[in-house]
């Protein structure tokens, strides 16, 4: 049976990595993800895993070494945050283009500057077009579960893409909470043996990877890569279903919380979703028909399913813990609004950028959003489409 534990988010992720026992982990410390390689190097030092741990000299080299190792045929993991991923940036695109299913917990932190070590989603959102699958976690349990599922999703023959497992820096990474772990043998059995369709260390079939790709062929390779992301939607659903059989925990592209009969709802991801659920409960107790949609899978983006889930609402607010600097709302807002376009009758929609650089999100903040949504629903007028929540005005 499940193992009852209490772990911080970082410990949860590191524990999943320990149970998976990948071939190679190459990582460089950066707050708040530092503990992940720390824990993992301890497992290596104590012989709890027999992974090759490569303590590289930078995040750029971390992702480069992951690429080399995954290309060689290994199962590979790393972890980072914000500027660390910023330094990896060009390699993120190469990892996905090379079809290398690297798994990377991204402990979300604000991208400098000014320098800030606290949580927001600007790191993950900036990488949304890099070709990585992006899973978001509400708490340590989801971070753990996502890390295990990420291996199966990324390595699936129809996908072969790298996967980012996002969890909120400090709020989840450094908060100790209850968690249910799976037995290690069950985890190993679930992820199975790595099997790359082609790899550098295949003696019989040497391959060349990362060629110069001129206009005659590059587009076809990008199209093939895009197909993997289409395929990932199906594979993610299959892996979620398999994982439910194993753990009893049911996951889907997004979680609908009291959404069925709601008139207004908030779309949010990460740890704020938990805080928002407590607000939904309170407002429901007051008689307000409010609901919540927590996005778990951001790339691939479940556009059609999302539109279906939101279509009955009068008004929707999308909360972004990142500024897109588009002057037209946050990044998730733009995707959600686009997803709703094909509906005959669409809910009104507003954007809230919130919580940047670790600004704490209080229940009163979220109540404010619901109250403003109620106004939009009542009047049918969006007077303020682009909003900043919790900024000192």
């Amino acid at each position, binding site marked *: 049976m499940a193992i009852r534990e209490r772990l911080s988010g970082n410990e949860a992720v590191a524990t999943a990595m320990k149970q998976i026992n990948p*071939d*190679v982990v*190459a990582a460089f410390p950066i707050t708040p993800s530092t503990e992940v390689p720390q824990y993992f190097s301890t497992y290596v030092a104590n012989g709890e895993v*027999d*992974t*090759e741990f*490569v*303590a*590289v*000299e*930078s995040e*750029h*080299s*971390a992702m*480069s*070494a*992951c*690429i*080399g*190792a*995954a*290309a*060689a*045929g*290994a199962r*590979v993991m790393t972890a980072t945050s914000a500027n660390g991923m910023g330094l990896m940036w*060009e*390699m993120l695109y*190469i990892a996905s283009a*090379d079809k290398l299913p690297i798994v990377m917990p991204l402990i979300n932190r604000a991208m400098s500057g000014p320098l800030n070590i606290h949580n927001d989603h600007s790191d993950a959102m900036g990488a949304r077009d890099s070709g990585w699958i992006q899973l978001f976690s509400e708490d340590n349990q989801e971070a753990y579960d996502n890390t295990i599922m990420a291996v199966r999703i990324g390595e699936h023959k129809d996908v072969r893409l790298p996967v980012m497992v996002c969890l909120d820096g400090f709020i989840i990474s450094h908060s100790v909470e209850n968690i249910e772990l799976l037995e290690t043998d069950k985890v190993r059995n679930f992820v199975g043996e790595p099997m790359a369709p082609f790899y*550098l*260390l*295949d*003696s019989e079939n*040497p*391959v*060349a*990877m*990362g*060629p*110069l*790709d*001129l206009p005659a*062929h590059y587009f076809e*390779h990008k199209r093939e890569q895009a197909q993997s992301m289409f395929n990932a939607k199906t594979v993610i659903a299959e892996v979620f279903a398999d994982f439910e059989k194993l753990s009893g925990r049911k996951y889907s592209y997004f979680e609908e919380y009291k959404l069925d009969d709601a008139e207004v709802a908030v779309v949010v991801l990460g740890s704020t979703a938990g805080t928002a659920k407590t607000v939904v409960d309170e407002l429901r107790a007051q008689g307000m028909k409010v609901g919540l949609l927590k996005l778990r899978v951001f790339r691939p983006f479940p556009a059609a399913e999302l539109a279906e889930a939101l279509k009955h609402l009068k008004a929707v607010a999308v909360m972004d813990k990142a500024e897109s600097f588009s002057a037209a709302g946050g990044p998730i807002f733009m995707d959600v609004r686009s997803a709703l376009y094909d509906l005959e009758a669409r809910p009104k929609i507003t954007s809230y950028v919130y919580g940047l650089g670790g600004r704490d999100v209080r229940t009163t903040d979220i109540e404010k959003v619901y109250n403003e949504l109620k106004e939009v629903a009542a009047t049918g007028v969006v007077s303020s489409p682009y909003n900043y929540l919790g900024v000192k005005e």
Partner: protein
Amino acid sequence: MAVNLKELTERPERLTGGHRLCAGCGASVVARAVMRALKPEDKAVVGVATGCLEVSTCIYPYTAWKDSFIHSAFENAGATVSGAEAAYKAMKRRGRVKDTHKFITFGGDGGTYDIGLQSLSGAMERGHDMVYVCYDNGAYMNTGIQRSSATPKYADTTTSPAGDVIPGKPQYRKDLATILAAHHIPYVAQTAPFGNFNDIHTKAEKAIYTEGPAFLNVLAPCPRGWRYDTPKLMEITKLAMDTCFWPIFEVENGNWKLNYKPKTKLPIEEYLKVQGRFSHLFEEGNRHLIEDMQKEIDRHWEIILERCGEK
């Protein structure tokens, strides 16, 4: 260990024709020579930094490499191949790989002296069992002959042009082999393709079959960037050595050894005058620049001699 060139012709050719490097390119001569040092039964993973050698030998859907090959970016060949080597250790331990694989990295001076120096230093310091080969042609040839920290002083490049006021690159070249030697890795050598290829072959063999990290700095003349006629490849290389512009030495477990001492040390002028990139030095009033270069060459040569116990 003498090399029998005839016998070596029976080794499998690991870099095929059909690549798209320039006619007369020194880099492919270097790459062939290094790869020839592999035992025929061993496999290799070749990693190449973005640069001439990479973009010309692996253009989809063709590869000129008979072994597995990976390129990922410009500044990270050291890290990329160190990852592959780590994978090899793990997979071998877990029984998923049987054969012996060797890990050989090639980078130009741009990818090695400059943008890739951190990644190279990290890979060497961590002790991966790999060889890093710098084919040093003294500028960013791939992007059109821009200066690098390996470019010789006064060379005319597209970002250190010889103008009316500034006579080419103002700075001396970086001494990369010494920097690598300071990593205290088992094997560092500087070589070039010359003579019967005894030196480069022996060093490549040592580098590949010495356990742990090894570094080779190899002179790779570039007819386009240096501006000489393609048939002169071997002559120019010889002049680089005989003027002591390019000392031939090795550092094995910390012991410096000189492997080539010219019978007569030629003036640097002999090396410079056959290359278009230095032609402005021979214009009226520029004699002192050649003298300045000679002083620097002499100073560096004395240092090498001292380190190698030759004086």
